[in-house]
């Protein structure tokens, strides 16, 4: 009898206590990370008067006024569109470069695997703004300053190492004999890559694209340093509601929510792929 109690306390798969704790813990973490989003959402739905109330109101009359205001706000719409373009170019560029690079690293006996690791750590460790300072004058000189392409190009410094690292761990899962079989059938490296490797790792491609898109979409520091007006991104657009002497909280929070939505939709749509992709090999790698 005693034995039984002890066993139950430790909890095998599916048994009570430890699983309950796991739920409580996970639930708390989810609440903790979602609370700011909830807060921003409620402010964006409040009228100007409710929004400034202190202490904050928990119950209020929701209004869409702030969202309607965005619709006629030219700067916000413009920066939103800029972000769409820059993210598309940035993601396309990152995959176009990372796919062949990862293949070369994994299957072409090129020493450089370790370098990608170092590059990855550096890119994550160093603050983005560090890259901006030396690039500022170069960009002005080459005409890349305040352009969509210029920004998308600069973002590669950060997204490429992760992309190459992820894709090479997906590619490494593929049996090398498949390459050899294709080579004997007459395929070139490029044909092997486009006809076999890429189709075989589509979930991984999707996961990489989504991660890059989210990072590029949310980036602020580089955009601040390398754009002025033409190529300003949505993260800068959101701050445009901060006037010289006043702050339009309602519009700004509404803008934040709208700015989150595309990435949210993107992530939800690709969620299956992301989980599948990330558990495909990257974790093992």
């Amino acid at each position, binding site marked *: 009898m005693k034995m039984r109690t002890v066993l139950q306390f430790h909890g095998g798969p599916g048994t009570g206590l430890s699983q309950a704790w796991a739920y409580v813990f996970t639930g708390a973490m989810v609440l903790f990370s979602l609370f700011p989003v909830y807060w921003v959402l409620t402010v964006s739905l409040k009228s100007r008067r409710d929004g400034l109330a202190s202490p904050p109101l928990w119950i209020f009359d929701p209004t869409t006024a702030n969202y309607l205001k965005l619709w006629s706000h030219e700067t916000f719409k413009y920066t939103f569109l800029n972000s769409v373009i820059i993210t598309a170019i940035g993601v396309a560029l990152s995959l176009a470069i990372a796919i062949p690079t990862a293949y070369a690293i994994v299957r072409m006996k090129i020493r450089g695997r370790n370098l990608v690791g170092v590059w990855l750590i550096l890119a994550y460790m160093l603050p983005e703004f560090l890259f901006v300072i030396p690039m500022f004058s170069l960009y002005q000189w080459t005409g890349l300053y305040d352009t969509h392409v210029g920004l998308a190009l600069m973002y590669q410094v950060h997204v490429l190492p992760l992309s190459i690292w992820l894709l090479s761990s997906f590619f490494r899962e593929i*049996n090398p004999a498949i390459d*050899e*079989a*294709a*080579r*004997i*059938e*007459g*395929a070139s490296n490029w044909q092997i890559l486009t006809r076999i490797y890429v189709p075989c790792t589509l979930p991984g491609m999707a996961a990489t694209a989504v991660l890059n898109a989210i990072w590029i979409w949310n980036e602020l520091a580089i955009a601040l340093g390398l754009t002025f007006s033409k190529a300003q991104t949505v993260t800068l657009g959101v701050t445009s509601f901060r006037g010289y002497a006043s702050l339009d909280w309602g519009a700004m929070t509404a803008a934040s929510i709208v700015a989150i939505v595309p990435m949210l939709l993107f992530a939800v749509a690709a969620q299956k792929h992301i989980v599948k992709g990330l558990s495909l090999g990257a974790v093992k790698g």
Partner: protein
Amino acid sequence: MRDIRFLDVAKSYGDVEVISGLDLYVREGEFMVLVGPSGCAKSTTLRMIAGLETISSGDLMIGGERANHLSPAQRNISMVFQSYALFPNMTVRDNLSFGLRIRKTDPATVKSEVVRVADTLGLGDLLGRKPRQLSGGQAQRVALGRAMIRRPDAFLFDEPLSNLDAELRVQMRGEISEMQRQLTTTTVYVTHDQVEAMTMGDRIAVMNQGRIMQIGVPTELYEQPANTFVAGFIGSPRMNLLDAKDLLGDAAATVAHGRGSTLGIRPEHLLIGLTEGGVPIGAARVNRIEDLGHEALLHLSNARGAHLTVRTSGDIRGTVRAGETLSLALRPDRLHFFDSTTGERLP
């Protein structure tokens, strides 16, 4: 159809030489089996023919032309891998036609060739499937189909049956032999299984530690092994190999080469009791009996402590027990003599 010739070929990985002084001639249309224990460089040899491994020194000739620096595609050769290496994202149809499509064959020909190969191999119903929806045997057939559809100058096989269960292996053994005989395409087939080698090969090259120990037709390897390695490797259960003195005792002196040589006698050439044509070699005690139904293997030790295996018909069941002592004889015309230091066959 072209012939393949290795001329004094060596292969090293870094400082480690895994093949040296390889001379091997595969005739046009021949089914050549490379057999040997794991790690003896069979695959490396095959992959050098395919162009998947570089050749460190020496020449590889395909159809009389030096092929050392040709890419795999330029060699017009097909290969079947142990893992099948089917393209996972493609249907059976696309797997079969991959090589033709890469080589820009016109679509009508591709279509008819797929039908032809699918008919030959009974793949008609599977054309729309992906590789993960195939059984081992089916995947194996697709791999064969992919190899034959281009009508290559040579087929290369690297242990293609190792992943199949015993029954299927026997069946596919027959099918591959049959296919090769019909197409008469030059074939090099690698296996570690001597039964596969004996049943499939026109000729067999036995390899050990990166060297060829003997090349010959199956009966030649069985009847006249060139050295103790081949003698022990070909034939199952393996040949009894022992000192002349241990096998024959004092009678050793009366046999040619008897003194100081290693004698070989296959388990099927040792006889129990005084049979006609047998030369008595004394008594031996039965340690263990392996009854396989149609035959039985007796493991014995003789008066000089030497271990012997005897193969008899299954009819012996019930008449012999472990612990008993039997008198043994052998067929003198079936004795093999080897130099006991070099292991080479003595004439």
